[in-house]
């Protein structure tokens, strides 16, 4: 690959507001420079890796993430507190425990029908499903061939972006049932069952590491936390 494409690839990713996939990059280059151009997805991957090394070496405040099947520039987490103060991200509400739970089930068992989902969760899930559809974190992908032909739900690229995953196979592996069965944790509370407990803890950690002395923002964040929606 010609070296000038390093810079072209960098510019393309930088100018895109959504993760840019390798086929999109190749397509743009071939459209401009002709179909004979021999650039490959591997070239792009290599370029991105080189760019990230260059950013690191020069202390550049952002990096290229590989998420949602593509590449996108993002600030390094180090400055999250400053950026968070200015950006609207701060007001973006986190997902509720119900939404996270529903998402987890769809993510791991997709495509999944509503009856299947509800039988695992044990509760009616219309509301959370609607919220997730609305946020474009899940989508409808046809129907199951089972009785009643219920609609099938799958996760979206927006889901991958939201959780910083490159592809579905990068999800952390759930423990096998046998593993959970053997596990004495069940009694030891290492794993918290209640999300609220986890949430407080995470928020605490986040606050400690990020917002050491700033009380104002701390209370703001707590409020934020209380406002989580489904």
């Amino acid at each position, binding site marked *: 690959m010609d070296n000038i494409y390093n810079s072209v690839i960098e510019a393309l990713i930088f*100018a895109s507001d959504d993760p840019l996939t390798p086929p999109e990059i190749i397509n743009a280059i071939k459209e*401009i420079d002709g179909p004979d151009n021999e650039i490959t997805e591997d070239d792009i991957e290599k370029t991105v890796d080189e760019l990230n090394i260059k950013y690191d070496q020069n202390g550049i405040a952002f990096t290229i993430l590989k998420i949602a099947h593509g590449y996108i520039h*993002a600030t390094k987490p180090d400055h999250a507190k400053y950026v968070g103060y200015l950006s609207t991200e701060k007001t973006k509400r986190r997902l509720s425990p119900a939404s996270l739970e529903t998402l*987890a089930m769809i993510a791991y068992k997709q495509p999944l029908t509503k009856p299947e989902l509800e039988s*695992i969760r*044990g*509760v009616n899930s219309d509301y959370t499903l609607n919220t997730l559809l609305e946020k474009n974190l899940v989508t409808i992908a046809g129907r199951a061939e089972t009785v009643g032909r219920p609609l099938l739900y799958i996760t979206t690229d927006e889901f991958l972006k939201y959780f910083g995953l490159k592809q579905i196979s990068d*999800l952390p592996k*759930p423990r096998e049932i046998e593993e959970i069965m053997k596990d004495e944790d069940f009694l030891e509370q290492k794993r918290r069952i209640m999300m609220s407990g986890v949430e407080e803890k995470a928020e605490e950690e986040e606050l400690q590491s990020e917002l050491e002395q700033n009380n104002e923002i701390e209370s703001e964040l707590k409020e934020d936390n209380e406002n989580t929606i489904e």
Partner: protein
Amino acid sequence: MYKIRLQEFEGPLDLLLFFLRRDELDIYDIPISRITKEFMEYLHLLEQLDLEVAGDFILMAATLMQIKVRMLLPREIDEKGEEVDPRAELVKALLEYKRYKEMSEEFFFMEANQRKFNYRGNFDEDPKQTTTDYGVLLKNITIYDLIKAFKKVLLDKPAEPVHQIKKWNITIDEQMEYISSKLGDNNQIGFLELMIDLREKIKIVVTFIAMLEMVKAGTIGIRESNKINDFIIYGLANG
């Protein structure tokens, strides 16, 4: 009695897991009667409040009751000749639920981590060269498409009221002089005759106003004419 806040539970399975954990009970040997008691107490809080959610809980209550009854009966035997634990189905459901519940906690941390990344905010100023490559830009677009698009823009655009401010190239004073000069030798002129040379509407209006001004000032007078729709303007001496 233990204080319970509803929003901490995502459903009956979650609630059961909570009871098991809180009281450090063995999931493989669930004390059904004790759990059922706890569950019913909680259900009592719920039942008047929301039928839909309570519905899920009532179903679980019924299941628990059924298991309790089956515990009293002689154990069923499966094909392998082994005793079937009436609680087995429930345990399986609890474990399956717990499995994904755990992952939702992972999701929670992934979400928190991902929120620390901020994406680029402003793309407006990126130089974009879009006009040089007509092949790309105008792919599949014909002249017909072009006029269609043009027409659409015209149709969709609500007609904006135009407030055009035009400076009059004519003043009342000028027209007062004009009227005086037109009086001529007879010191009078018909209105239609006065106006006949004036081409612009604005000039006619201004002249009419000038005429009224002069009448008011007493420099001219107006009297009937024998022609229809006309009148005579005459000069007043010493105005």
